[in-house]
């Protein structure tokens, strides 16, 4: 038995993929929506997306091993980010788990082809970590729900065609029991989106406002008032998929750190060299932990990887910034202006040539990484999840 080497079938898959990526990987700026959509469609048409999704909905019906190989090769080839990452990592897997046959047939193929971009509407101004406090109302009106309220921190909302939404359908029920999951067309009358500028100057998130938006009941996923369970399933999938994607980013970030160090005129002092070595150790262990725990990541154990990744990436960015010496705080002129006028950006730090220098910089990385321990579950909430759900500590 060999543990480090691919099986012959895996090796063939890897070879085919590597050859294809070498021939086809484009250079796309991270704000070029049309080019990014075209790239995702090309990936899909070549059979490299939805690797673990069922074949009848456009997926490849393969296993986690192939997905892991894809991630490794994607990192190696430095491919552009998936523009439809929310659809691919969150909405799609959630629909596969809980959606009706009609929903799966209708939505999944277009998620893969990037014909329809998705976002996720869970968080609200008063419902962050305490998601069950959400107040966006859906009032029953014949064949429709009428929705009024506000979502926040909605990645990709500025370019999305659909939103995977949690709403309150029964305000009188206990709070976990009055929530329903819906698919909502972002072009529906009454939906408005405002960019939310973040500390990097970019606006990769938006605020989404619903003013008496009519949504057909046919767009409901699961039963009415069953949305909490569905939301939780979405979360475990989000964290599992995030873990996998993050391990790719970590490799890219570490490679970038090495490049940055090797480009210095002055060698690192021993303490800095040790910090970089520590980053190597941790990124190696974390990436491999994702593979080792692959079959457990759809459960609560994904929180283990998510917490570790967030802190690892934050440390990595700090180290990267510190390698710049006295220049560490300096920005290129107009850096914030470059990104201020953002119409669409993406929750990714994957880099491709043609990006603005600021978006490639350690300053940007350092600032963006502050969100890592907040988005997708704060590290505080996730540590409680690990303690209670994995270790079995009592809740009260």
């Amino acid at each position, binding site marked *: *038995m*060999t*543990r*480090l*080497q691919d099986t012959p079938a895996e090796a063939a898959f890897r070879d085919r993929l590597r050859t294809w990526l070498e021939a086809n990987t484009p250079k796309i700026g991270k704000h070029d929506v049309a080019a990014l959509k075209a790239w995702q469609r090309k990936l899909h048409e070549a059979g490299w997306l939805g690797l673990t999704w069922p074949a009848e909905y456009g997926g490849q019906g393969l296993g986690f091993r192939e997905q*892991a190989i894809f991630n490794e090769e994607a990192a190696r080839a430095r491919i552009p980010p998936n523009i439809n990452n929310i659809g691919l990592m969150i909405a799609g897997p959630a629909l596969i788990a809980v959606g009706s046959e009609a929903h799966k047939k209708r939505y999944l193929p277009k998620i893969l082809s990037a014909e329809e971009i998705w976002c996720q509407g869970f968080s609200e101004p008063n419902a962050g970590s305490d998601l069950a406090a959400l107040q966006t109302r859906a009032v029953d009106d014949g064949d429709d729900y009428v929705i009024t309220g506000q979502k926040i921190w909605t990645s990709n909302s500025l370019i999305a065609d659909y939103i995977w939404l949690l709403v309150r359908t029964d305000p009188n029920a206990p709070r976990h029991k009055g929530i329903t999951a819906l698919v909502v067309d972002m072009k529906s009358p009454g939906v408005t989106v405002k960019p939310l500028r973040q500390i990097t100057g970019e606006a990769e998130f938006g605020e989404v406002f619903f003013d008496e938006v009519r949504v057909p009941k046919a767009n409901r996923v699961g039963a009415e008032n069953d949305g909490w369970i569905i939301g939780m399933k979405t979360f475990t999938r989000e964290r599992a998929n995030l873990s996998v994607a993050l391990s790719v980013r970590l490799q890219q970030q570490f490679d970038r750190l*090495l490049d940055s*160090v*090797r480009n210095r005129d002055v*060698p*690192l002092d*021993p303490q800095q*060299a*040790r910090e*970089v*070595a*520590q980053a*190597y*150790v*941790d990124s*190696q*262990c*974390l990436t*491999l*932990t994702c*593979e*080792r*725990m692959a079959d457990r990541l759809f459960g609560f154990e994904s929180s*283990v990887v998510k*917490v*570790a990744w967030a802190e690892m990436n934050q440390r990595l960015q700090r180290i990267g910034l510190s390698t710049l010496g006295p220049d560490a705080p300096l920005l290129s002129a107009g850096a914030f202006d470059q990104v201020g006028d953002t119409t669409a950006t993406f929750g990714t730090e994957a880099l491709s040539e043609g990006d603005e220098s600021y978006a490639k910089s350690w300053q940007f990385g350092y600032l963006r990484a502050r969100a890592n321990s907040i988005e997708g579950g704060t590290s*505080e909430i*996730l*540590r*409680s999840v*690990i*303690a*209670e759900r*994995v*270790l*079995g*500590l*009592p*809740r*009260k």
Partner: protein
Amino acid sequence: MDFSLNEEQVLLRDSAREFLGEEWPSAELRRMLDAADGAAAAQALWSKMSDLGWPGLLVSEDYDGLGLGMFDLAVLMEETGAALIPGTLHASGLLAVSALEAMATQESCQKYLPDIAEGKLKATVGIYEPGSGWTPMMLAPDAGEVVTKRYVPDGASADLILFVNRTGGNGAQIAIAHEAQVEDIYSMDVTRSLSQVTCSADKLEVLGEGTIADVQAVIDRAAIGLSAELIGSSARVLDMTVEYVKSRKQFGRAVGTFQAVQHKAADMLIGIEKGRTGVYYAAAVADERPDDLARAASVAKATANQTAVSVGELGIQLHGGLGFTWEQDLHLYLKRAKAAEFTYGDTKWHLDRIAHGLGLS
């Protein structure tokens, strides 16, 4: 990558856990430490482990061993680490076996390995010298009339003491130290005995030659085994801690309901999962890709050092005052972790080796 345990490994793990639960519970460990017949407890455990074939797990089948690999040994050593067994298995079944197989002649292997595999012969290896640090190139190239080896594991109870010496340049040799003077040195880790061993140069019986790289590879394999023990002992500390904070009540509720406690417990698990990955990875590299052994061993040892010490400290913290008592076993785990941290390279040494390998220094 495939880090899943196969059927035999699951069986090995489960049977080892059951065996050690019966044969080496805390009371037995305490008997070894405190009782007048303490050595008898250790010897009784050794005989039973020998019946299971553990001393010969790594020994190739040519020499009547089980012919298994480092990954299998790592799976076993997680369990032996959890039970805090004494150091004989590590010294004889890992360190001595690796050193002999790497450097001794076939004839010498034939002479000693079958008895070591059977557990009839308890062997150990002295490598480090006063002032050599953890770097084999720092061993004295020409030892002079008397050779002194420090930090020799289980020297006092060993039947066969081997010395690994530098012979000048990159050359190295393995030799039996006959008529050696064995002096106990006392480690913080009271569960493991250490010796300083002195031998006249003319009493060394050379069993084979090798290189400093061979010596480092032997140390790296031992470091991986020790890392596996540390991850196993860390996992046991976490189990003990989880049980304790579930039952201990203050302010009318289990202390495990407090977030400040929960979050420390979560950090313990995060460290253990990362550390276990490092160990399995390095063990797989030792078996399948020995050219990459140095860096992989450093990944495993650096991570295991950090995890074991931090888990050991947090375990005491979360047990409150009870954790600070001699009677509770937690201090034994922390002392094991702390002593192991400075064995076969501390964290700094391993990070410096990685930095050097990455071209950073």
